[in-house]
């Protein structure tokens, strides 16, 4: 639950000031259209005790103000659920802090823009006036006016660059912001001096325009980061869901899963995910641990057994006492491995940083050379310094600083439209360098939940009847039967008179006799009781067997083939039994596979590949994949992955299909090419412009023109990525 300040404009709503108000922020998964905004707000407002509701479509969140404590978070979530929206409380403490920084940047952009426009207006007058009959006193007045606008702007709007340059210098490094800050500050100071002398060689317009363009690039970068982080938080929040807490005196109360503390007792129904690590107090049954270990065969549990968050309960209703997470040996082990993997991974140096490392010393060198050169040939120091500043401004990395952010936002927009969230800022650059793809099996290459295997052998009428029973249950097998019936366009009626005995099966009394759906024993069949089958029996008919297995995602084989076609070797790494892994590998066309791998083995495998020069893109979802995702060169996980894995991955994709992986690979490649092209444009421009500046031919007018042209050029080039291939 997140409590933060009430939005500034909530004052327009009739709210009693003395009332106790509490603001919640909920992530709403499927709010996608304009009409949804109204539905979400109406649903929330329909609850008594809700003072106001405000949906944010871009962030896919809703802020709800609760009054007097008459409504709770769970009430709001339930109301939204009835309206057809999956909602979950945000897990982060303060969603406001990031957006505040973003709007602070936008404010600087606006002020720099305002100043740039007005100074340019004055500068153009001066430039054109010089050719005509403009009075010298008027020129001086215009220069003073420019100074009046430029000085506060440079002081205020340039702060992000100065701060970053200072911290870089303190760490004895050079980054892009050092030449930027130097150029802006030197140009402003020199222009002020020239204005005092009554010269019109002033660069106020260049300094401020430079800031304006660079701030746009910086804002885009920040905006992207905030949005990616927000989407990732939404996904994580939606996954954790609601737990049923057994309160004092046995009263049941829905609470957000992340609010559980050690010692709490929770009730877990059939087919529900276990919300927190704990010990089983009562109840027994089977636990599907595929998200944790990759093992698809359910494990039998009895009271006293340890269960882990994220696993799926298949048996009867369990009462679980929550234990502290760090006592769990498996989780502790995974945490240790992840910390080691992240430490061992060399910090990736971003493309822009690498460019800055070459660029910054070169620009400083050229500037200094210009200054010393002109002094040496006997020019006055003012002239020499003016020419040196012209070099700094003309060479200044406007194009360079825009080159990468412009491409990144185009790429991110393209991926967002296809349901892919970029989590790591440098993820795109690393994926572009990957030269091998490694998949996990359970939940990644496969759906991670049972699918009906022998659906084709079951006649329609039996399927219809079985689905009519199954629809009453939340057991994954029952849901797979219902899904199969819906696939075959069989109408599934609402269940009436169906009784469920958790962990065993379903029963309904019909006029002609009983019908049962469940284990072989439940249906009274003396068959070998396979773990992954369900029988349907009617008193007047022979029983029918339904077999289940975790099936491959529909496009798994295609995606693997396409990866190979594009020249990526493909490997399959799984913690599941070898036979199961081999089957999946054959079906999807993967030759290199390994089964029964522990998380540590997966890391070893990745380390070996890295030694052979492979940069592996790891695709995985389970808790057991989390260390591998952190250790791999780049990583992707599906949106239904364990939350620790989503945190570790560079990208998260939504949907049932694997094709987003191909989209990520190709978009990353194209983004890299476009960024390199942009660097090329910036380089060519510098090759031409810098010698002129060094020779002293660049006037403030020329500096303004070439700077703007190169910036627009790189932005247009980046826009090509967003424009092509609409979804």
């Amino acid at each position, binding site marked *: 639950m997140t409590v933060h300040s009430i*939005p500034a404009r909530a004052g327009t709503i009739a709210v009693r000031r003395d009332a106790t108000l509490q603001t919640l922020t909920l992530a709403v998964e499927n709010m996608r259209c*304009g*009409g949804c905004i109204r539905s979400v707000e109406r649903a929330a407002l329909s609850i008594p005790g809700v003072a106001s509701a405000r949906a944010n479509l*871009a962030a896919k969140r809703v802020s709800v103000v609760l009054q007097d404590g008459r409504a709770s978070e769970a009430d709001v979530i339930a109301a939204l659920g009835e309206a057809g929206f999956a909602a979950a409380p945000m897990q982060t403490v303060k969603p406001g802090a990031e957006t505040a920084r973003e709007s602070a940047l936008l404010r600087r952009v606006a002020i720099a*823009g*305002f100043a740039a*426009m007005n100074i340019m207006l004055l500068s153009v007058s001066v430039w054109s006036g010089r050719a005509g009959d403009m009075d010298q006193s*008027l020129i001086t007045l215009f220069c003073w006016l420019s100074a009046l606008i430029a000085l506060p702007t440079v002081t205020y709007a340039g702060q992000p660059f100065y701060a970053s340059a200072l911290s870089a210098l303190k760490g004895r490094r050079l980054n892009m912001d050092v030449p930027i800050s130097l150029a802006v500050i030197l140009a402003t100071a020199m222009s002020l001096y020239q204005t005092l002398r009554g010269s019109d060689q002033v660069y106020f317009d260049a300094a401020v325009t430079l800031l304006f363009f660079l701030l746009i690039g910086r804002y885009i970068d920040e905006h992207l980061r905030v949005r990616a982080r927000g989407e990732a938080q939404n996904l994580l929040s939606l996954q954790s869901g609601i737990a049923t807490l057994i309160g004092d005196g046995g009263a049941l109360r829905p609470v957000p899963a992340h609010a559980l503390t050690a010692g709490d007792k929770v009730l877990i129904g059939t087919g529900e995910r276990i919300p927190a690590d704990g010990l089983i107090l009562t109840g027994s049954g089977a636990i599907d641990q595929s998200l944790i270990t990759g093992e698809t065969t359910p494990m039998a549990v009895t009271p006293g057994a340890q269960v882990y968050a994220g696993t799926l309960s298949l048996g009867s209703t369990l009462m679980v006492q929550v234990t502290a997470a760090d006592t769990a040996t498996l989780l502790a082990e995974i945490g240790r491995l992840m910390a080691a993997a992240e430490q061992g991974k060399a910090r990736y140096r971003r493309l822009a940083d690498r460019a800055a490392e070459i660029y910054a010393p070169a620009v400083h060198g050229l500037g200094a050379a210009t200054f010393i050169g002109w002094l040496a040939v006997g020019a006055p120091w003012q002239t020499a310094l003016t020419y040196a500043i012209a070099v700094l401004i003309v060479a200044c990395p406007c194009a360079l600083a825009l080159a990468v952010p412009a491409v990144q936002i185009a790429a991110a927009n393209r991926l967002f439209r296809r349901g892919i969230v970029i989590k790591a800022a440098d993820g795109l650059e690393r994926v572009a360098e990957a030269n091998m793809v490694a998949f996990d099996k359970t939940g990644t290459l496969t759906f991670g939940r049972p699918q009906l295997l022998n659906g084709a052998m079951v006649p329609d009428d039996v399927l219809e009847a079985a689905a009519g029973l199954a629809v009453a249950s939340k057991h994954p097998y029952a849901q797979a039967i219902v899904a199969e019936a819906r696939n075959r366009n069989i109408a599934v009626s609402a269940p009436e008179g169906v009784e469920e005995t958790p962990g065993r099966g379903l029963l309904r009394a019909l006029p002609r006799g009983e019908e049962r759906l469940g284990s072989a024993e439940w249906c009274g069949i003396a068959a070998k009781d396979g773990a992954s089958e369900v029988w349907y029996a009617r008193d007047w008919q022979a029983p029918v067997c339904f077999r289940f297995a975790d099936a491959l995602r529909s496009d798994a084989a295609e995606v693997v083939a396409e990866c190979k076609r594009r020249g990526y070797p493909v490997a399959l790494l799984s913690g599941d039994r070898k036979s199961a892994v081999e089957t999946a590998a054959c079906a999807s066309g993967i030759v290199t596979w390994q089964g029964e791998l522990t998380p540590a083995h997966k890391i070893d495998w990745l380390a070996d590949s890295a030694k052979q020069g492979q940069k592996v893109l790891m695709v995985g979802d389970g808790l057991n994949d989390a260390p591998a995702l952190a250790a791999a060169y780049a990583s992707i996980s599906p949106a239904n992955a364990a939350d620790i894995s989503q945190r570790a991955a560079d990208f998260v994709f939504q949907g049932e299909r694997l094709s987003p992986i191909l989209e990520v690979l190709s978009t990353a490649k194209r983004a890299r090419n476009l960024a390199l092209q942009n660097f090329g444009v910036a380089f060519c421009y510098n090759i031409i412009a810098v010698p002129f500046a060094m020779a002293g031919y660049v006037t403030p007018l020329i500096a303004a023109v070439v700077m703007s042209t190169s910036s627009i050029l790189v932005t247009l080039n980046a826009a090509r990525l967003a424009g092509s291939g609409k979804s």
Partner: protein
Amino acid sequence: MTALAWLIPAALFLGGLGLVAFLWALRSGQFEDLEGAAYRALEDDPPSDPVSRRDPEPQSSERG
């Protein structure tokens, strides 16, 4: 030339007005949900509804 004495302040004032309008819009949260704002403009609920009271206005051109 005397025209400049009031033309320049007028130009700066109008530009400043745009800047202030933008900063006000930013502060009042109108840039928080640019996607949603596009749809809210199409709502035909009466303005007495407390929720629609917070409808953002369309962006104005005040970048300078």
